[in-house]
């Protein structure tokens, strides 16, 4: 094989020494922040046999070169399931900075491999965790204030629309007016995702971080649902300068409800022609044994660095973007 001359091969990292130091400094601040609060750093496997069944996430499946390969392995899309098993086993508050992998995600704010800062707080609800997120943003970004908005308030402000009550055809009309074109019909969640990401989120988080909470139940993911009129999912997201930094829940702890949501996710996967995923029976067993009431959040660490650096693209703060 003929090797190209060394000068042609682009081996250098993308980031500048300033970013290198900033990233290390933020990691140190995060670790110090949690250590002071008695939150334990943990390290769970990247390999899993039961990746997320979320139809909007594409886990990467591994192909071994071994003649006698192990059963199916995937890279995790977040460390959520094993961390919840730690909680159920009585770990107390825990955090992790975990490389995570999502296929088909590439863009200004996306890389197929990225770092999540994920943490769980037994005894917290989503509002208590939002307080802690605000404290973390103060320590890492110097943000001494934040704005807290319900999803209903945000939709009323930017779209004059009630996200909990709007009919499918109302959502369709507003989405179409804002440029959405779909080849096939879609459910409420798709329209709400579009309106949120195109018409609401870009204006959030300026000049102070925005904590957006209480989502329509069609977007409950793994959050608890609070009965009421309307019922809401106790979920929240963090926005800084229009960028979604993280997503948190007052965590679902009911094993029966969790199984139903897994089954619903697989039904959706079937509907859009994606392979179904094996259910994480060990997580379900852990919930059945009793996971403490808690709140948890996954926050994109690279995006945090990006915001702190004032960078425009994720690649700018990653040494070796894909």
């Amino acid at each position: 094989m003929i090797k190209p001359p060394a000068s042609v091969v682009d081996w250098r990292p993308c980031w500048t020494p300033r970013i290198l130091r900033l990233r290390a400094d933020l990691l140190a601040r995060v670790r110090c922040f949690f250590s002071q609060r008695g939150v334990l750093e943990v390290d769970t496997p990247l390999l899993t046999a039961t990746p997320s069944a979320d139809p909007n996430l594409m886990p990467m499946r591994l192909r071994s070169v071994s003649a006698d390969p192990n059963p199916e392995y995937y890279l995790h899309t977040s460390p959520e399931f094993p961390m919840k098993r730690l909680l159920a086993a009585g770990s107390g508050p825990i955090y992790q900075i975990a490389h995570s992998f999502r296929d088909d995600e590439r863009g200004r704010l996306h890389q197929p491999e990225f770092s999540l800062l994920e943490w769980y707080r037994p005894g917290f609800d989503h509002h208590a965790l939002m307080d802690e997120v605000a404290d973390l943003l103060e320590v890492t970004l110097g943000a001494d204030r934040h704005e807290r908005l319900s999803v209903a308030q945000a939709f009323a402000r930017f779209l004059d629309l009630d996200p909990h009550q709007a009919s499918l055809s109302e959502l369709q009309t507003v989405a179409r007016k804002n440029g959405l074109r779909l080849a096939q019909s879609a459910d409420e969640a798709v329209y709400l995702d579009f309106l949120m990401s195109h018409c609401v989120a870009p204006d959030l988080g300026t000049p102070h971080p925005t904590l957006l909470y209480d989502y329509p139940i069609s977007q409950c993911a793994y959050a608890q649902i609070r009965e009421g009129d309307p019922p809401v999912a106790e979920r929240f997201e963090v926005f800084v300068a229009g960028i979604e930094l993280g997503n948190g829940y007052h965590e679902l702890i009911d094993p029966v409800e969790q199984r139903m949501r897994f089954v619903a996710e697989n039904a959706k996967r079937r509907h859009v022609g994606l392979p179904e995923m094996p259910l994480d029976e060990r997580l379900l067993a852990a919930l059945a044994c009793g996971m403490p009431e808690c709140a948890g959040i996954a926050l994109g660490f690279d995006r945090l660095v990006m915001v702190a650096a004032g960078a425009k693209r994720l690649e700018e703060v990653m040494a070796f973007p894909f």
Partner: protein
Amino acid sequence: MASYSTNQFKAGLKVLLDGDPCSILENEFVKPGKGQAFNRVKLRNLKTGRVIERTYKSGESLEGADVVDKEFQYLYSDGELWHFMDPETYEQVAAGKTAMEDVAPWLKGQETCLLTLWNGQPLAVAPPNFVILTITRTDPGVRGDTAAGGAKPATLETGAVVKVPLFVENGEVIKIDTRTGEYVSRVKE
């Protein structure tokens, strides 16, 4: 024509949108952490020049548009159509008024132009960056004014009117930048 999935979208790709040929200007991947992935696309309608913003669910596709850029030689105009010839195949195409409006005043014949063709029909015509034309009418410049850097209108053999320096005279041949419509220099024959 092939169709292109959102993950093949990139600037410069030509696609059909509501039946019109469009060129993708920007393509952004937008995805909430929990939720549907989208591609937000900025396109230029090649017929109207208008810029449009559309969003598609990631994974959906658009039909490709058969749009190519090719050099042609300008032959003549019959008043309604402007006729061009492919210098390699001698194949001829004709462009209508909409494509020629801003271009026709610079052309007298023989010029090599860049044509944007959609299904073989010209959508847009780009004249050469510089053309050389004869002045057919301009008032004599008033001597003494030259120091002020003044300019006066001059009509060219094609009918185009450009601003020229006061010292330029009737019957002279000049070079013009078609991108700005500005006089560049006199040309000695």
